[in-house]
Each structure stands twice: as C-alpha cells, then as structure tokens.
C-alpha cells in the first residue's frame, strides 16, 4: 500500500536502510513505509536499490505500487528459497493445474459413460419408431476429452495456451514465453 509522501521526521524504510536523508520526492518513500523494514531489506538483497530505482523509473507512477509489491513478493520468495524463488510456486501450481485437469477429464469421461448408459437401446431395424419416442439423457455441456479411456485412466498431456511462460527445466508441455504486458502489464 502506498503511504503518504516522506516526512522530515520519519525516513522511509529504504532511506533508513541506506542511511541517507529521505528527501521529499524520494522514489521509494510511497512504497516502503518505515513500519515495514523487512520489505526493503529483502528487495535490496535480491535486486539492489539502484536496479529497483531504474525499474520504477521505467514505469508510470500508477504502476509502481504493484511493481514494488510484486518485487517484494519475489524477493521474499527468493530469500526463503534461494534456489527456486517464486518459480517454485509456479512449478507447483502448474502441477496442480495438470492434476486438476486430469481429474476433470476423468470426471467428464465418467459422466459420458453414465449418460450413454441411460440411452435406450435402438429398436430392431424392422420397426419404425416415431420421432421423439427415444429418450436421451441430456449431456451437460462440459469439457469432454472425446476419449473414453476406461474408468480410471491415463489422461493425455494437456497444454494450457493461456499460460504465457515456459519452464525450461520441467518435463511439462508448455508454451513459449510471449508478451506479458511489458511497459505496463495489466495481468492482475
């Protein structure tokens, strides 16, 4: 949350950390309040104050709060997990998406099987049946895999075209990195 502009009495967390005077117009002051010293400490450790300054200067003022919050999130994740940082969370979530998609495919397959089991068998060819006499259970409009692979199943590999980033060191299928809204992303 952006706090009010720096006051002479209370330097922002960044200037406190850097042991410098917090001037009016300090670029860090709205986003690093003195009550949250760890936020800047993490960001400084991972990204460095000058890199954060350059990043913020490249953005429009209304984008900076979100940028600082996402940097703080990444920095905290990297401090807790120096090897994977928040990319570990992405990998975990991607696996959950795949697992849930498999569950959904299986449930849809089961639903299709039950739906088809309720359809009356076709009459002998010698008889003509008036239209409308055969009742068919309505099949809900769900996402069908189109494959009937048995009750408990192997699901096909699923790609998620909406996921903009690829993880080069996993064996999941993924899409290439694409434009994620550079120059002012608005994903969220």
């Amino acid at each position: 949350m952006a706090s009010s502009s720096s006051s002479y009495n209370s330097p922002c967390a960044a200037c406190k950390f850097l042991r410098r005077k917090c001037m009016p117009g300090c670029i860090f002051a709205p986003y690093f309040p003195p009550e949250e010293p760890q936020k800047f400490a993490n960001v400084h450790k991972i990204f460095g104050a000058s890199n954060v300054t350059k990043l913020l200067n490249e953005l429009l003022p209304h984008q900076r709060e979100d940028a600082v919050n996402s940097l703080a999130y990444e920095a905290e994740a990297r401090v807790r997990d120096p090897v994977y940082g928040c990319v570990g969370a992405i990998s975990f979530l991607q696996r959950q998406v795949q697992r849930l998609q498999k569950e959904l495919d299986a449930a849809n397959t089961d639903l299709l099987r039950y739906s088809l089991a309720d359809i009356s068998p076709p009459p002998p060819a010698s008889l003509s049946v008036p239209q409308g006499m055969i009742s068919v259970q309505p099949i809900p409009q769900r996402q069908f895999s189109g494959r009937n692979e048995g009750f408990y199943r192997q699901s096909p590999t699923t790609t998620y075209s909406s996921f903009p980033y690829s993880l080069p060191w996993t064996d999941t299928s993924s899409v290439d990195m694409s434009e994620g809204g550079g120059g002012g992303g608005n994903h969220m």
Partner: protein
Amino acid sequence: MMASGYSNSPCAACKFLRRKCNQDCIFAPYFPPEEPHKFVNVHKIFGASNVSKILNEVLPHQREDTVNSLAYEAEARIKNPVYGCVGAISVLQGQLFRLQKELDATNADLIRFTHEGSSSLGLGHVHSDDFFNYPSNLSNDM
C-alpha cells in the same frame, strides 16, 4: 545447460562485463557464450554481484537450477515490468479456480446420475486449500 567453463572462449558474463574469464569463474558453467541474453537479462534485473552472492549461498549442485530460475524471473520481469513472473502465479491461480469449479459441477452431475443406488464412485476431489494458499506463509498483497 551447463557449459564446461574451461574453454578458451570467455563465458557470457565475462564477455558482458569485459573482464578475463578465469578458470574458477562462478558464472562460466551457467552462462555459456552462446546464450548472451541469459546473462544480459539476469544482470539487468538482479545485478552481477547479487547473482554472485546468491550462487555462493547455495550448494554447487544447486547452482544450475538457481541460475535457470533467476534467468526465468529476469526474462519474465523484462517482458512484464509491473508483475514479472508473479503475473504467471496469478494466471495459474485463476486457472485452478476455474478448473475446481468445473470439477465440482461435473461431480455434482455424476452424483445426480448415480444417486439411485449405484455403488460409491470414490469421486476424486482436489482440495483447493493446497494450491490457493500457496505459498501460505508468504505475504501476498496482490
């Protein structure tokens, strides 16, 4: 991809930093000269000295994954300067939410089909708490 670090050609980091690439260069195994953009991105977002400190904090066998995840984060931040790879987390959480709703609805339909005395199906259900709150101990002001 890990380069040997012992070739005559300086690694991408030392090329970029215009310095001699020694045999014990910490960057050389992970920033081969054929991938200059990898170090350029990492340097732009994190800085060479911060990367060096992080690599020195992890065990040698962890460094390749560390560099790859830093490179991933750096590229994501360059493509999306506001949200970086945190944007991807948000997208994935949205996908999970939609999939869970879809699964709940499909399971409800299955229950309707089978409520008249069929054997129990042992319907699968993924508990949403596991992934909606990940990482649960991190602040999330998004």
